[in-house]
Structure formats: structure tokens, C-alpha cells
């Protein structure tokens, strides 16, 4: 009996020091106002090699991608019975193959009609508020750019870009976009707790996605302009040009952030306190 009575003392040795509250900090998720993300300068700096790798890949593959752009546009134009004539344009470290293509001429009656229709449509959209305001504003921007081009054509007689200059501009824009995009995406990626592979994948995917986008878009632009006239050229370039290239960056960015959010949920201890 006496042995039993003394058992508790035997099984519970006196702790040499007080237990750390470190475990508690790992169990209790800090309030959102106290949180920090598990990012480090070293982790952020790994974005630099990732950007360099993609830049090298772009430089190595740009010529082929640009050739593909020209080839596909010629194919679509031929299919649409639009006459084209490619010519070489040495630019930076590549030689692009822009083309002249036939564009219809708009007479003054057509230009006046376009201006009137666009202005009326803008007015109608200002009054008719059933459509959500951002959509109306976006349609209005397109209409105003088209009306502006028609007005410029009416006053000056021709736009600053003919088919050859537009084609050259599109190819050069594509090349610059592929070169600038990794740096821009790298700036985003450097801020977040991505792994090196996630960083690389994020940058590669955005650029890789942009190549087919540029190829298809260029061919579509040639087809549209070949069938219509240069009135739509400004709108196509300004609204559906580089602006459209930037939107997928945000789409991929949000998808990658969801992955980060998932991993943070699974590893709650990674939240930093203050």
C-alpha cells in the first residue's frame, strides 16, 4: 500500500525548467492583423535566376515564335482570300517577317456614318443603364476609339499606320511583351512564399500562354482588317493588344496565390506573429 501511495512522486519527476509556450504559438493561429507570411529575402532573390532563365529561353525561342506568328497569319489571310506580301525586318536580335495586306478604303460617307453611329451608341449607353456601368464604359471606350479613328481619317485622309507598319508594330510589340513580361511577373512572384519551382512555373506559364495568344491575335487582326478597313486598327491595338497580354498575368497570379493559400491553411504554424 505504501508503495502505491508513493507512485505519483516516482512517475512525475520535477521539471528542470518551465515548459516553453512555443507550442502554443504554433497551435493558435494569430489574428489576421498580427499575421506575417513566411517569406525571406533569400526566397525572393531566387526570383532573379528564374527571370533570367525565362529571358534566355525567350531570346532563344523568339525567332521561331515570330516566324510562327507570320506563318499562321499568312495562312489565315490566304484562307480568307486576303492578299499578303511578307518582307524581312531585322530588329534587335531577330528578323521578323511582317507583311503588307490588302485593306479596304473607307470613303467619307462610310466614315461619317461610323462617327454618327458610334456617338449615338455612346449616348444610348449613357442613358440606358440596364447594363452594368463597367461594361458600358468598356463598350464606350471601344466606340470612342473607333469614332476617333474615323474622324482622323476624315480630316487627315490616312492613319499613321498602313498594313505594313501595323504588321511591323504587332510583331515588335509581341517581342517586347515577351521580353518585359518575365520581369513584370517576377516582381509579383518575388513578394510571395512561392517555392523556386513555383516561381519559375508562374513566369514560364504566363510567357508560354502569351505566345499562342499573340499568334492567334495577330492572325485575327489581319483577317479583321483585311475584311474591313483601318478604322478598327487603333481599337484593336490599344484595347486588344498589350492590354490583353497583361490580363492573363493576373489570372495565373490568382491561381498561384490560391495554391499558396492552401499550403498556408495546411501549415498553420507558418504564420508569423507580429
Amino acid at each position, binding site marked *: 500500500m505504501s508503495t502505491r501511495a508513493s507512485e505519483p512522486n516516482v512517475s512525475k519527476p520535477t521539471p528542470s525548467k518551465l515548459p516553453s509556450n512555443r507550442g502554443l504559438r504554433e497551435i493558435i493561429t494569430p489574428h489576421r492583423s498580427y499575421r506575417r507570411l513566411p517569406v525571406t529575402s533569400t526566397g525572393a532573390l531566387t526570383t532573379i535566376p528564374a527571370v533570367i532563365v525565362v529571358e534566355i529561353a525567350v531570346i532563344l525561342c523568339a525567332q521561331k515564335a515570330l516566324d510562327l506568328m507570320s506563318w499562321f497569319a499568312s495562312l489565315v489571310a490566304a484562307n480568307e482570300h486576303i492578299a499578303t506580301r511578307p518582307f524581312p525586318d531585322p530588329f534587335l536580335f531577330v528578323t521578323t517577317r511582317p507583311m503588307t495586306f490588302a485593306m479596304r478604303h473607307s470613303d467619307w460617307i462610310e466614315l461619317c456614318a461610323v462617327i454618327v453611329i458610334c456617338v449615338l451608341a455612346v449616348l444610348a449607353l449613357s442613358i440606358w443603364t440596364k447594363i452594368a456601368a463597367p461594361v458600358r464604359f468598356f463598350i464606350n471606350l471601344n466606340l470612342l476609339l473607333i469614332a476617333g479613328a474615323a474622324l482622323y481619317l476624315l480630316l487627315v485622309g490616312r492613319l499613321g499606320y498602313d498594313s505594313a507598319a501595323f504588321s511591323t508594330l504587332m510583331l515588335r510589340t509581341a517581342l517586347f511583351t515577351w521580353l518585359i513580361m518575365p520581369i513584370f511577373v517576377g516582381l509579383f512572384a518575388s513578394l510571395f512564399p512561392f517555392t523556386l519551382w513555383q516561381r519559375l512555373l508562374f513566369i514560364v506559364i504566363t510567357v508560354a500562354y502569351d505566345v499562342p495568344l499573340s499568334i492567334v491575335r495577330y492572325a485575327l487582326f489581319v483577317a479583321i482588317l483585311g475584311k474591313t478597313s483601318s478604322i478598327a486598327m487603333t481599337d484593336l491595338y490599344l484595347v486588344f493588344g498589350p*492590354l490583353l497580354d*497583361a490580363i492573363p498575368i493576373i489570372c495565373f497570379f490568382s491561381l498561384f496565390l490560391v495554391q499558396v493559400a492552401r499550403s498556408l491553411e495546411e501549415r498553420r504554424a507558418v504564420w508569423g506573429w507580429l
Partner: protein
Amino acid sequence: MVVTLLQTWTWVVVAIMVVYAFRHWRFTWNRISARQRPYYQDLLDSELPPVSIIVPMHNEAAVAKKLLDSLVDSNYPRELLDVIPVDDQSGDATPALVYEYAQQYSFIQPIYNLQGERGKAAALNRALSLAKNEIVLVFDADYTPGRDLVRELAMAFIDPEVGAVMGRVVPRNNAVNLLTRLLSLERSGGYQVDQQARYNLDLFPQYGGTVGGFRRSVVMEMGGFDALTLAEDTDLTVRLFINGWRVLYANRAECYEEVPENWNARFTQLRRWARGHNRAFFVHIVPLMLSKKLSLVQKIDGALLLFIYTVPPILLSGIVVNALLFYMGAIPVIPGIIFAFFVVAYNAFGNFAPVFEVGAAELLDGARERLLLLPYLFYLFLFNSWAVTTGAIDALGDFIKTRRANWDKTKRAGAADAAR
């Protein structure tokens, strides 16, 4: 000559965007990785100061009940509270509602402004002259403060250097539609990252005027609120900094608000903000830069903050200039691409939170599905830009003609909210 000028302007726009990109990149990096500057809510054993709470109200019957109930429910000792709802010529049931609460609770002492000057600044001035206490908190009528909020905000004033404090605004109706969801993202970026980073870096956190407070004596000494302005919050922030006071941001002090649920209400709100904020820019930029009580970094950040509602008109001008250059066949490719990228990245102009800042805020808030909404922020770009541009034009007119701006109140959806 014209082409050179237009091309130069494109570069200027790009340079402005790069400056802001660097500023917000730094904010985001600081918020997610650096040690956060603690606030005062851990001073649990400190003596609580007596507090006056002012609630300006104009046609707020749909939402005011929720706020008054929250204040009644606050855990701040009632003997230290003095709640002053200011009925500012309401045409709805607001006066009756306020009267009903005043009958029930002695610490609620409303003011009824039946005639004379209208607007938030005027209402605050009227209430300030009657407020009993040195510490004054201000809530908008559509806000729902939590039980601890009054204490959390009031604690900051134990520090004698603190002139004002601002809490975090969290939308409570964020799940109503796409607009409210996007506004919720925008608020997260603006408060969780932007304001906290400015507080961390000892820069220019802003007193936002809707869930915050200030020292009555300081504001009275500075001549009260400028009745000409629609952004009495920005106005006060800058005046406090210029006079050597500190403005704090309390990220933990969260208060729920109702964000606009339709595009017209949002347009009116943004236009009013831009009008007031740009007027503050015109009035305060020179005194701010000449102030001897601010460091150079604070001056630069203050100037960038004041300039924020001028950026959307500049961006719009960038689009117009690019269109003209295209018509003339002289569009510069590189700045054009950079411009387009920044247009997409800087799509939320309410608090001017770029998309990576919003993403960081949502991660810190523990959100997951909401992150998928980030691309939709671009949807707001033209809408925000145009609303802010019209406000900026209004502000220029106000400043040149020294005219008084009308207070275009944001329509509340509180009744619909209650029905839901």
C-alpha cells in the same frame, strides 16, 4: 513637335506608375515579411479615458439602428461615454429613431440640425462644440463597431503624441454581388497592407474619418473642420502631420461597414472622395512640403498619398495620348506595353491598391476562393478612372472658384440588407 510632346507625356505617365509600383511593392514586402509595429490594445491595465462619439447622419434610418445598437452594446463603461448622433436635416425617420434611443439611454445626446450648413464637416463642427470629452471618435452611420472597438481606438490617446487614430474597415455586405466582392478586395488591400505598412514604416497612415478618432482640443485649435471640403479626413490627416502630431493605424480595431451595392452609388461615392481628396491636394501640398516637422521620406509619402486621386485622370490621359499617337503612326512600343501592364496591375483606385497588394491582403486575411476574383478587378478600371476623373475636375473647379461642394451622400442599402 506634337508627337514628341505626346511621346514624352507617355513616358511621364509610365514614370509615375513606376514610382507608385515601387511604393506599393515596398509596402507589400514590409507588410508580409517585416516585423509589425504593435498597437496600443495590449495596454490592458491602463485607465480608460472618457470618450465622445460623434455620428453624423443624413437620411440614415435604414442603417442607423444597427450602429446605435452596437454602441449601446459596447463594453466601454457607459459613464465614460457620450454619444452624439448629429441628424443633418434628414428627410426620413432618422430624427425619430435617434430621439427614441435618446429617451432610452442617457449617454446618447443627439443634435438636430434643422437648418443651416449641411455636410459632414459642418456636422462634426457642430458636435465638437458640444462634445464633453477630449477624445472624440467618429463613426459613419452605416458602420457596425464591435464590442471592444471603442476601447481599442481610445487606448491610442494614452500616448500624448497621438493626434488621431484610424481603425480597419471591413465590408459586412461583401457577398451581395460582384461589386461588393470587389470592393471588399479593395478595402483589404488598402487597410491590411497599405495602411499597416505606412504605420510600420512611420510614414503617412491616414485618418479615414469613418472609424477613428482624434483629440478635440487639437482640432479646435486648428479651427475645426474645413466646411468647404468633402474629405475632412484627408484634410485632418495632413494638418495633423504638418503640425507635428502622429496619426496611428489600428489594424486590430476592425469595424464593419456597408459598401455600395450598385454602380451609381459607388460612382457617387468615388467622385465625392476624389473631389475632396484632390481639393486637399491643392490646398495642402505646399505647406506639406515646407513643413519642418516632417522627415523627407514622410513628405514624399504624404505627397504621393495626396496625389493618388490625380493618378486615374493621368492614366486616362495616357490612353487618349496613346490613341492620338496611334492615329499619327508614332506610338512608342516599350512605354506602351509598360503602360498597358500597369493599367492592368493598378486597377483598384479606391485606396489605390495594386493587384499584388490585394493578393497579399487576402492571403493574410486567410482567404482562398476570393483570390480567384483578382482578375475581375480590371473590370473596375475604366469605371473607377472615370469616376475619379470627374471628381478631380470638380475639385479643380471648387479650388479655382472657391465654391462650396455639395455633399452627395452614398445611398444605403441597409433596408434591403435587413430584409435579406
